[in-house]
């Protein structure tokens, strides 16, 4: 089938080419200062005879009189009239129109002049991404453009981030898709930031509808760098290195506060034991990080290349080298002109990462969680003398962990249960995640006739990941111990290919400019997974942690599964403009996915958008300070099949994990009916309306854009299990259960100018967001995450997605010192029915900004980013562990007797009135100075002596200053779990960094 598609496209191309190659004509090239201009219109004045230039800026015109005059135009450039004067070959260089400095933006399956864009697209340039210490592209995007929120999952090295474009539009996976040089991928963690040329974020449905069933959560298009046909080859080396440190201002109770609090709470009167450990100080350390990027780029008239390599190495501020993240990447991008009508090329990258994992985001056993909960009366290690309870355990054969000096780590002096000395627990973290990834695309561009470009492109995305861990023996308490060495491996090998064939035809007729795009694609994703487990190990140590060397075959376990998804699609786009003044675009995509049910096999996703460049109208005052003014409006429907499993319309039986003991030492396998089938299940559809204005003024120095969007995600996929009554007694797979609305405004403002040798620029962006679940198919809320046995987040009609649940309080009763719980249901009693919405993790407002200036050889950058209106639910406290430590604010603000005007209740270690109430919800708003950077570039005369093109040194401080009222470790309390956003179980804070940079090219 695939062969057939390719054949038909090629045969057609060759056929067309053959016909045109024989035509008589005059030929020419249109270029600008930086190279050929594809898509420029060339018209013989006074005739209908006109063409647009091909991708090399070339054109051929037939039957042109020798005295004819050509009109050459291109949006953003001054139109030129050129007399033929009998020439058969003409080279035309267009000059940029000073009044409309214009950029090209990458859109789905093509590029577009920004002035002609009718959708909402934000761009981030390479220098904004690579000039900071972020190890992942997502982090570097934070705060750069409006409408996109980037929430770090954690501050640990190599941790991912959640990108939400215009709010959370799905109950399950709401991540955007990433298109890297045309290849679709679901993660961009393996791309070196130094390889990136630009990032485009398609925010509205009209822009993303060309990606159909995968565009609903937005599309991020990443274009990597390529070589240049012109000029000399460039060798560049960039290096950033520095020290990371903890910057949180979080305070826990110290030893005396802790004792007082426990005494007042009636737990116990404890005498001081002379120990006052600040566990946060103990668990954090300064950590090294470095990033290096080396590239070679160049080309000839026929070929271009970019070869690059990068190395990233980052230790953790918790766990140091145990939380280390390393990444190596190599890339080869090349493009070759085979002949006049054929161009082939590739963008190919390989990366290798290794990440040490320490326990995070876990309210029971996380390292940071335990650092918060550990009582301050426990010493880190016993340096003078071991207490009898420890020696008793040692005598009893228990393995008490020791530090590198041979001292026993302190066992909890008071706190009980699974809570353990975090430093001792770090020594037993033997968990590593290694990945190898190949991501790339191979393409051929065929240009049989002027204006027509046929592309065939094969993308591959292969991900091999291995999580390898082993578990040493240790003992802290009966709840926190390991008495058997075991080895675990989890191996996943995702691979996908995507084959796309599309043709673009671009032409003009008088002032009518139009482009057609038509394409087909097919793709397949496969993911086998294997897990292996065995023990005990012959001896503790990394070298023994392999299954051949474990000793008891009876402990061996294997597991494995397989996931497969396939899709085929057809798509098309029509773009039209009249004189760059009236703009119109429509797209349509048709997808057939293996995840769809028999009943709804194929899906259409349409979009329509229009623009009006008012500044091009005759009535526009040429003298106006505003050079460019555009209204745009777009509407579209986009889908998401990310949360569909496929085959959900059939009744199945499963035997997974079902067995009963036969009474003779064996098991009898059992079967269960799997989910009740749902024949009507369909994809999620996101429908979005976008209205926007783009404006430029003062000779392009000022740029301003604003958008209003109204996005509704319909047929939201929710787990049927979370909606059907338990009395059905069966699982029900996914159902289309609701609608989520995201609405908001976005503003982007930029100003750049220059006074003599002083250049400066400022960019600001601001977005508002209102997120609400507007309907649910079944009138029942869906429970989200459970913390300590109770539902903590919910998905409910009329509320923000995954809002926080708890008791609402109305101050502290001055007489009793207890919180006054609001009787929400008016029943007269405080019951669980009074549990209500006490906060939302979603900010109302997020913003970012960059200031930059340069004077002669010096430059300065300042970036900041923040959110307003989000809340954080501090849930790392343990009501079931009376002796666990607490945040200092519970002590400082506590009620100590009538008239204490307290903000927090009397000392209390277990009451839901405190720990499941809004008293534990903090304002998550913050403003973070992402970067302050000073740079110095050597002046040209010195560079020339050194035979260098560029040499720049920089020093920056990053993520160093955070302004927030939140009294936890980090207001960016991230989580990998969608339903657990804003729930603080003891987050790994984002480290501050002091970074030195070196950048040179020759």
């Amino acid at each position, binding site marked *: 089938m695939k062969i057939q598609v390719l054949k038909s496209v090629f045969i057609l191309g060759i056929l067309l080419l053959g016909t045109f190659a024989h035509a008589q004509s005059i030929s020419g090239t249109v270029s600008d200062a930086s190279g050929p201009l594809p898509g420029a219109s060339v018209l013989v004045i006074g005739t209908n005879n006109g063409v647009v230039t091909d991708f090399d800026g070339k054109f051929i015109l037939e039957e042109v009189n020798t005295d004819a005059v050509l009109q050459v135009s291109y949006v953003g450039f001054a139109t030129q009239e050129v007399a033929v004067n009998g020439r058969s070959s003409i080279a035309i260089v267009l000059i940029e129109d000073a009044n409309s400095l214009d950029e090209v933006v990458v859109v789905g399956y093509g590029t577009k002049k920004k002035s002609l864009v009718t959708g909402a697209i934000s761009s981030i340039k390479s220098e904004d991404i690579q000039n900071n210490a972020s190890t992942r592209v997502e982090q570097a995007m934070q705060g750069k453009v409006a409408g996109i929120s980037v929430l770090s999952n954690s501050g640990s090295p190599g941790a991912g981030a959640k990108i939400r474009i215009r709010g959370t539009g799905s109950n399950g996976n709401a991540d955007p898709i990433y298109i890297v040089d045309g290849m679709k991928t679901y993660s961009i963690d393996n791309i070196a930031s130094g390889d990136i040329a630009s990032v485009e974020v398609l925010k509205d449905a009209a822009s993303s509808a060309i990606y159909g069933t995968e565009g609903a959560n937005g599309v991020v298009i990443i274009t990597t760098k390529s070589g240049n046909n012109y000029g000399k080859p460039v060798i560049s080396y960039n290096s950033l290195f520095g020290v990371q440190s903890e910057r949180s201002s979080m305070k826990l109770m110290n030893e005396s506060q802790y004792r007082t609090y426990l005494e007042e709470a009636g737990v116990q009167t404890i005498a001081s034991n002379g120990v006052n450990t600040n566990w946060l100080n103990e668990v954090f350390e300064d950590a090294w990080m470095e990033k290096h990027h080396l590239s070679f780029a160049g080309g000839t008239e026929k070929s271009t290349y970019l070869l690059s390599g990068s190395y990233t190495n980052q230790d953790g501020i918790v766990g140091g080298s145990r939380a280390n993240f390393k990444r190596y990447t190599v890339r080869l991008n090349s493009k070759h002109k085979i002949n006049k009508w054929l161009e082939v090329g590739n963008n190919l990258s390989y990366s290798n990462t290794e990440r040490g994992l320490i326990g995070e985001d876990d309210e029971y056993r996380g390292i940071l969680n335990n650092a918060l909960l550990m009582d301050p009366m426990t010493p880190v290690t016993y340096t003078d003398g071991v207490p009898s309870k420890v020696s008793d355990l040692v005598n009893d054969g228990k393995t008490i962990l020791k530090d590198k000096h041979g001292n026993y780590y302190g066992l909890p002096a008071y706190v009980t249960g699974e809570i353990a000395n975090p430093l001792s627990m770090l020594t037993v973290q033997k968990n590593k995640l290694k990945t190898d990834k190949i991501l790339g695309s191979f393409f051929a561009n065929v240009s049989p006739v002027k204006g027509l470009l046929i592309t065939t492109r094969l993308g591959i995305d292969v991900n091999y990941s291995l999580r390898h861990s082993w578990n040493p023996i240790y003992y802290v308490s009966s709840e926190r111990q390991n008495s058997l060495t075991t080895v675990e491996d989890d191996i996943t090998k995702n691979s996908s290919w995507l084959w796309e064939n599309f043709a673009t035809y671009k032409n003009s007729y008088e002032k009518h400019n139009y482009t057609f795009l038509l394409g087909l694609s097919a793709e397949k994703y496969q993911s086998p997974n294997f897990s292996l487990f065995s023990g005990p190990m012959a001896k503790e140590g990394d070298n023994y942690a392999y299954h051949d060397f474990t000793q008891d075959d009876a402990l061996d376990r294997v597991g494995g599964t397989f996931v497969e998804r396939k899709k085929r699609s057809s798509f098309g786009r029509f773009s039209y403009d009249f004189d760059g003044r009236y703009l119109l675009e429509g797209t349509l995509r048709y997808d057939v996915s293996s995840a769809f049910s028999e009943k709804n096999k194929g899906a259409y996703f349409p979009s329509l958008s229009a623009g009006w460049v008012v500044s091009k109208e005759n009535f526009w005052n040429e003298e106006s300070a505003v050079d460019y003014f555009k209204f745009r409006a777009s509407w579209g429907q986009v889908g998401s099949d990310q949360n569909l499993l496929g085959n959900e319309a059939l009744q199945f039986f499963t035997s997974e994990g079902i067995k009963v003991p036969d009474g003779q030492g064996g098991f009898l396998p059992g079967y269960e*009916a799997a989910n009740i089938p749902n024949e009507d299940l369909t994809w999620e559809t996101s429908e979005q309306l976008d209205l926007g204005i783009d404006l430029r003024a003062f000779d392009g120095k000022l740029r301003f854009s604003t958008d209003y969007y109204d996005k509704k995600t319909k047929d939201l996929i929710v787990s049927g299990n979370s909606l059907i009554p*338990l009395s059905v007694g069966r699982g029900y797979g996914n159902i289309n259960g609701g609608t989520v609305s995201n609405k908001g405004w976005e503003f982007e403002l930029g100003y750049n100018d220059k006074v003599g040798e002083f250049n400066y620029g400022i960019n600001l962006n601001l977005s508002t967001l209102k997120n609400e679940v507007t309907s649910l198919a079944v009138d029942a809320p869906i429970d989200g995450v459970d913390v300590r046995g109770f539902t903590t987040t919910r998905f409910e009609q009329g509320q923000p997605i995954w809002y926080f649940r708890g008791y609402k309080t109305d101050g502290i009763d001055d007489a009793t010192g207890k919180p006054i719980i609001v009787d929400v249901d008016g029943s007269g009693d405080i019951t669980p029915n009074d549990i209500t919405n006490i906060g939302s993790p979603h900010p109302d407002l997020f913003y970012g900004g960059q200031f930059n200036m340069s004077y002669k050889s010096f430059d300065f950058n300042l970036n900041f980013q923040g959110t307003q209106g989000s809340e954080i639910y501090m849930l790392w406290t343990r009501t079931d562990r009376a002796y666990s430590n607490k945040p200092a604010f519970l002590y400082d603000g506590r009620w100590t007797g009538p008239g204490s005007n307290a903000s927090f209740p009397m000392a209390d270690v277990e009451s839901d009135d405190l720990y499941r109430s809004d008293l534990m919800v903090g304002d998550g708003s913050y403003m973070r100075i992402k970067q302050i950077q000073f740079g110095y570039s050597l002046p040209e005369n010195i560079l020339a002596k050194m035979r260098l093109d560029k040499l720049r040194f920089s020093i920056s401080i990053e993520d160093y200053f955070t302004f927030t009222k939140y009294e936890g470790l980090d207001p960016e309390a991230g989580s990998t779990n969608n339903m657990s956003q804003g729930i603080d179980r003891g987050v790994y804070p984002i480290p501050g960094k002091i970074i030195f940079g070196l950048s040179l090219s020759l």
Partner: protein
Amino acid sequence: METMKKYIKILIVGVLFAGTYTSCSDDFTDVEPIGLINEADFLTTDAEAESVIFGIYDLMAWNYNRPWNSAFFLKVLAGDCANAGSTSGDQPPLQQIDDFNQVSDNPAITGVWEGYYKTIGLANVLIEKLEVSDLGTKDKFIAEAKFLRAYSYFELVTLFGGVPLRVETPQTVEEFGLPRSTKREVYVQIEADLSVAIAGLPSKGSIAQSFRISKEAAQAVLGKVYLFQEKYDLASKEFEKVITSNSYDLEPNFKDVWNSEGEHGIESLIELSYVSTEKYDWGNFPWGGRPESNIHAQLMGPRGGVFEVEAIGIANGWGFNIPTAKIGMAFEDAGDTVRKEATVISEADLVSAGGAVNPPDVGIHDYEGYVRLKYVTKSEDTDGPINELNYGINWRLLRYADVLLMAAESYHKNNEDAKALIELNKVRSRAGLADVTALGSDLFDAIVLERQLELAFEGQRFFDLVRWGLADGELSGEGYQSKNQLFPIPQNEISRNTLIEPEDQNPGY
């Protein structure tokens, strides 16, 4: 321009043609499900039908052993023999149940509701599919599935009163809502299912595996169902059938009933199996899944660091299900040493046996001077690599001693005190106690006491007290109010079930 237009047309046609071509080949986007068997290819053989029966047993075993949310805890903690234990803030849902201040969103109650309905749901599927199948042996599987369904409904009706009576699988969202039936309607269904079960089940001697239900076990359950409805005549007839079948008997030594050698022994009518051979360790124990070991042993073992119990052959656990002084003293007052020694040990006895109790300054939450021995963390019941996670103790859900005591009660209520005494004294004599000779209400009191002592920590006491009307008196010290005679319908069910409204909640919740 004319020629160009022509070629564009050719191109578009070409692309569309290719598009159509791919669209026709639908098989490209078909993906086979992994690891699942389509119903069209299933339940065509004995073995397949039987494997679903095993699936139902597995769900039952899961429901009674779900870590923290088990039917076992729900039934035991409501009684007056057990306190929740551990520390006061530990597992609030279980503390609530113990203290009778449970609320409708209590996850342990919700979990148990879910567990019974999952068991019923799978039984429904099997019954429905088999009823229309031409499998020749289907009747015996239908009989067994109906027993398992009836048993679950019986537990539900005693815990919650009238519940939604779901006897077939709903196919669409519209059918998911179902109102509460009356208690009476639920009992009618239970009786009907049990009568089919009794007719189709094999006798004890012919059951295929020791954990499968026998005809006599179904008769005993039917007897219990009658007894709970105060249909004493019918009840006594069913118990009589079980007794006269001689399929079951009392284990000669009371303490052997809970030994691993005694699993599925002569006294056991319904028993859920767990094993110590799965070699769970801290890294792979399925906390959210379906452990094959009995994790409750560890959850309810005497709390480490507080109780030193090694001297009596017991390992430490996490301290839940700790005895009340009431049950300890009940044994002492009755002079019942045989059963006491297998059920609880007092602090004094523990210390004299070489153990110790080391209370922290705050004291031991819920501790009233006794340590539980029935279903305790006996070192011999577990195996490595991690003893804590591999206890293999089976839950005895219905014992012959219980049958005898229920028979005695039915006879007594049916004015057949002489017959009642015979059955009662069988149980007493095994416990080494003198025969009871009292008649009338004294006999009834003797039966009440006997059930308390014999069946302590087996999840019977609370339901007995409620049906006898004695709960108000006996449980008042535990925080019981009359509304607590039923557990609240889970809030979750009320909000999702479109035909159950908040006002349909059990009174007082």
